[in-house]
């Protein structure tokens, strides 16, 4: 008799030195309002720390927000660390000020989707629900 509902778990954090956190806090609240459990790790996280936390918290999704231009290096490192820890099944998402021409590069690194400034909260929610659903079914 299992009545405990499985909930989507998401780690949201800001890698690097970028301190602009309005956007990520909005997304965190939207995900909570959609019924998800969101671990918010704040600003100035190292990629190493984010990946370790994602593993300890057994999240479905790791979402990072970067508005200061370090997205290519940081996301490459995050994706590499996830693979090294055999945790590439955790879906990596990026958001923030990201030039459109960088999106293919990010996806090649292993970022599953990119939500640029102007992205709609409901699109982010819907995408996470979809990938978490695929992950649970796998």
């Amino acid at each position: 008799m299992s009545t405990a509902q499985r909930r989507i778990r998401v780690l949201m954090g800001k890698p690097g030195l970028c301190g602009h956190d309005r956007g990520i806090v909005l997304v965190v609240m939207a995900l909570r309002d959609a019924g998800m459990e969101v671990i918010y790790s704040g600003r100035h996280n190292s990629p190493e720390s984010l990946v370790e936390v994602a593993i300890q918290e057994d999240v479905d999704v790791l979402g990072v927000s970067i508005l200061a231009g370090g997205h290519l290096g940081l996301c490459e490192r995050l994706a590499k660390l996830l693979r090294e820890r055999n945790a590439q099944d955790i879906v990596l998402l990026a958001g923030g000020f990201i030039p459109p021409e960088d999106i293919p590069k990010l996806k090649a690194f292993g970022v599953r989707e990119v939500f640029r400034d102007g992205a709609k909260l409901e699109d982010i929610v819907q995408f996470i629900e979809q990938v978490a659903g695929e992950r649970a079914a796998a």
Partner: protein
Amino acid sequence: MGDRLGGSADDYVAGILRGDRRSIARAISAVENETATGRAILRNIQRHLGRAQLIGITGAPGAGKSTLVSALIGEFLGRGRSVGVVAVDPSSPFSGGAILGDRIRMERHSLAERTFIRSLATRGHSGGLSRAVVAVVDVLDAAGFDLIIVETVGVGQSEVEIAEIADTRIVVCPPGLGDDVQAIKAGILEIADILVVSKADLPLADKTELDLRFMLSVRDPSARQPAIVRVSSVASIGITELADSIDARRDLGVGKRGIGSRARMRRLFAQEAANLLRRRMTSIESPALDALCDAVACGDIDHEQASLQAMRLVMEGCR
């Protein structure tokens, strides 16, 4: 659900005992979600339990609990101990979602090898929150952590319930929240083994300590006397004393999970039985229960007798 780790309960148990972090994390999800695998994991680790010292930390929002936990992790790692943390935050009653932010204060330990931190939302666990917490603590205990700290927001019955399961209960009292009357109202004096006056670098901390000492002095002298420790996590004041105080309880033999485990088990049974009963009694279709409600309304039977009868009815309905 077969995943890369094999996914069988035996694989998880082997991984937990090895201290493999991915296995520990996934096993925690399985026990928290009360899956069949999760239940099997719990059964199979029971005989590996009892080594950890379990510490409960509670206090009002903003009291400084997470920052204190972070300081304690550093102190105990320095003493050669490994530390597991379960940080409990409330789920939204509206969406069921949660924002779990306690880790932000513990960021500097997230890469420490002998530390494992897990955030837990209070979501409607069918066996009650404390059973879910005990299950997560069990996994960390089996994984060999010497010290396990459970952090909860001290506002309600479930937190008091969690305090009941800990070997050492710490209540964090920040300065400036109110006068001595608040201390009696909250009932914090009853559950605490150690009272921590947090933010001791602030001027009002003297007053808070004085209030607590006064309230303790006017209590029944035969009641258990909690220790009072002043702490400032940011100024690194009192952390050593607090850790000493925790160690002293372990050395006295009261600080180990194995001690008094029957009494603790009974308290857990009581909580879980009450939860089960509440769920069934409020949801079951039963003309007999309805008749009982009417009988109370007419004054034919008193509340206590009716409750006992209702309990019997529900139990019989379960068979």
